[in-house]
């Protein structure tokens, strides 16, 4: 579904160049749940930004369903983002002035869907994610966990094919984190959502079916969950992180 081929990303000017991504390549199959891990500054967010077309790449190519997204015009990129991608951010990024229902419906509105069906679609996904009772509330009236579930609903409501999550549990307590990760798993398994999640939390990563490790902008390792139970997978991730050399406080 998604092919990342030898992408590179440089920042800076002639005199001082910082290489944020260095020949990164990997494939994502439809219905996969992938976590990208690495210490701070390893290039995880840059990679996610490039895939989400918010940032441009310096070399290489990113193909989604065979289409090279790095060559699209601004208008096509905008269309691509609203139709194909769903976002979940660490700080929720819900609009304060809109109710939860409107925040979710906004994506459908941007996709020019029939206004009469918007409410029904929002109610349906809200029911699946267990946030029906907060639909009429404003973001400041609900908890962090509920906000993040609303963000997930927004990322999925227009049947986007790829959900990009940037540290989705970063601002949540452990209970809310667990709840959110279970919901994401449910979205992946039942709704067949393809998820690409950036995290530096090993516990969050253990919910994925595959974990990619980045170090200094390069792909360092890859772990497949297979049929192993999640706690075993979690420990394996920790082992890789130990080898990776990141500060342990960074990753747990």
């Amino acid at each position, binding site marked *: 579904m998604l092919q990342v081929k030898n992408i590179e990303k440089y920042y800076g000017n002639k005199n001082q160049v910082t290489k944020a991504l260095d020949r990164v390549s990997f494939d994502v199959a439809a219905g996969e749940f992938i976590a990208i891990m690495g210490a701070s500054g390893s290039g995880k967010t840059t990679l996610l930004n490039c895939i989400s077309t918010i940032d441009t790449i310096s070399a290489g190519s990113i193909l989604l369903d065979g289409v090279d997204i790095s060559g699209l015009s*601004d208008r096509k990129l*905008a269309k691509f*983002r609203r139709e194909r991608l769903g976002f979940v951010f660490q700080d929720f990024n819900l*609009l*304060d*002035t809109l109710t939860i229902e*409107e925040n979710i419906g906004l994506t459908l509105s*941007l996709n020019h869907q029939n206004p009469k069906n918007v*409410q029904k679609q929002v109610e349906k996904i809200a029911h699946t994610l267990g946030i029906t009772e907060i639909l009429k509330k404003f973001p400041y009236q609900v908890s962090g966990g509920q906000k993040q579930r609303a963000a997930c609903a927004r990322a999925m409501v227009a049947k986007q094919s790829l959900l990009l999550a940037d540290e989705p549990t970063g601002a949540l307590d452990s209970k809310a984190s667990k709840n959110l990760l279970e919901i994401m798993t449910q979205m992946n398994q039942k709704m067949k959502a393809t998820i690409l999640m950036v995290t530096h939390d090993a516990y969050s990563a253990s919910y994925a079916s595959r974990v990619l490790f980045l170090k200094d902008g390069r792909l360092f390792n890859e772990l497949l969950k297979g049929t192993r139970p999640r706690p075993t997978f979690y420990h394996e991730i920790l082992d890789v992180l130990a080898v990776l050399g990141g500060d342990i406080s960074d990753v747990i």
Partner: protein
Amino acid sequence: MTLSKLSFRNAKRQTGDYLIYFTTIVLAAALLYAFNGLTFSSELLTLSKFMETLPMMIVFASIVVVCIFGWLVSYATGFMLSRRSRELGTYLLIGLEKKEVAHLFFLENLMVGGFAFLLGLLLGNFLYQVLRAILLALFSCPYHFTLAFSLKAAGLTFTYFTFIYLLALFKSRWHIHKMKIYDLIYFDRQNEHVIVKNSKSRQRLFTFSIILGIVGTILLLMENALIGILGAGCIILFLYIFFLTFASGVPAFFDRQPFRKYQKQNLLIYRTLTAKLGTMGIVMATIALLFTATLISQGTGLIFWGIFNARSADKYCFDLYADSERPEGIPSEYLDYIEQNISVEQSLLYCIYQRESNEFITYLQKNADYYPYNQKDMVIRYSDYQALRSIAGYPNVTLESGEYLIHCQRYLKNTLKNHQPVIHFGETTLSSAGIHTEPFMQNNYTTGNGHGFLLVVPDDAVSALAPHHFSYAANTTAPVTEEQYEALDTIRNRVCENIDELYDSLHTEANEKATVASMTAISIFPLYFLAFALTMTAATILTIQQLAECRHYQTQYKLLQKLGMDRREMAKTLRTQFSIYYTLPAVPPLFISIPFLLHTANATEPGIMVGAFSPAMIILNTLLLFFFIYAIYILMAYTTLKRNVLPENL
């Protein structure tokens, strides 16, 4: 870092963040200084004796303007206080005392105010020169640039500014004293609640407000001071209830038809409008009130100008004119004085006769906006008419025997074109030879050269007619001075002392011009002073509110971009949000002020508000001037907003 250093840094930032507000404060100081400068200028106040009342009018307007600017500064400091609540909360959190925070805030506002005051004085000097040039031009005096700094004007401006700032700072001090750290830190996280929740009472209130608005506007037109005040009260109530119920009505509308909010960009636009319902409603109503006052001030100023101009233009035609209804003719006292003191080039003593018929008066009464001050149609001999045309500097006209001419005010021409009957004077029958409309002293009530119109007939035709009054007209080698007019006026007071209901007319071109110039200065300067202050205040408050939302807009549009909203759609949404915000408070004032101005312009005597001062032109010019100033603020706000919210690289 010391407190004063921190204040200085904050003041610098405040000047940058609220540039438009700062600019308005500078302009406020400039306006106050420039107008105060007029009140202390002996050069300008001695232009005419009528100018003696100018200082009083300016001081009166200044008091209102100071109150308006006082409210602006008070509002803006209060607004900044709330926008910076988190920062101020942090000061308290790290152990600063409330007294110190208040002191910090006081210092930085003092710096901003002081700096604005100094800049304002500089700009005010320039503005003063502009006003001086306008005044001198009104009096037809030559303008020479002379750099003059009035210490008295600066002192008065300083006093006004101290009052404005002390008021605002006492208010903010009280605010800071009442603050709680928690409230400060979490101040901006909440949306405001709907003011009028019950849908039925909201609808009733909304309808009631519209009725109040209509009733208020009608009462304003009743030409009665007390009823007018009642009307103004109704309009104030209308604006506040209208905007509060309107703001509350928007969410109710979308609650009833939820799908509508998902159409196009409705959702974002509607939520931006309703996020600050209470504040927005009150701000919008206040702004609308200020705009109404602005439009009325500007329009009334133009109406006054039109009245003075038109009334005098008619009298400008002769350098010197006098008339009297005494049967013995013009008293010799006037003529003796003129002969001894005024160098006359050409003069004429003549008589205005009255016909036995009033057919022209009756016709005009029926077909034009004409009030008959005379019982019969007025008539002049052709030879006198020719001489008067020569004195006034108009080209000669010829009148064949058996013909008559009509000389009327311009506004009556079209009506009289349809009424040029054959007229009879005893045995003589005359047919019309045309109509002339040059200014001809036809604006007096019963005297002058006929009220509104005059029939010019061959000399022999008047032999059987009775004289109505006697007149004297002259052109002089030099303009008749104000002193000479004063002397003639003294003679008039003496000769008219014992005559009941008779008062001789006396006009000199120079005196008319000085009167018009003074009246224009006395009425229009304060009105426009007020109008500028009102527009600037209202536009600044709107802009402060709008730009303060910049950060909120930035977050919103960054997210929308990530969610895949097209840039063109984003720009369109921003434009719509922006235009609704700036259009809403300008609409009700149009519905109130346009009927008011039309009515006032039409309430003057006929023939006055014509041409460039016709009611339609007055409305057009008022709107043009108002929207010109408003557009400058809108443009500044929009470019700043767009640059911050939708930068090129977004």
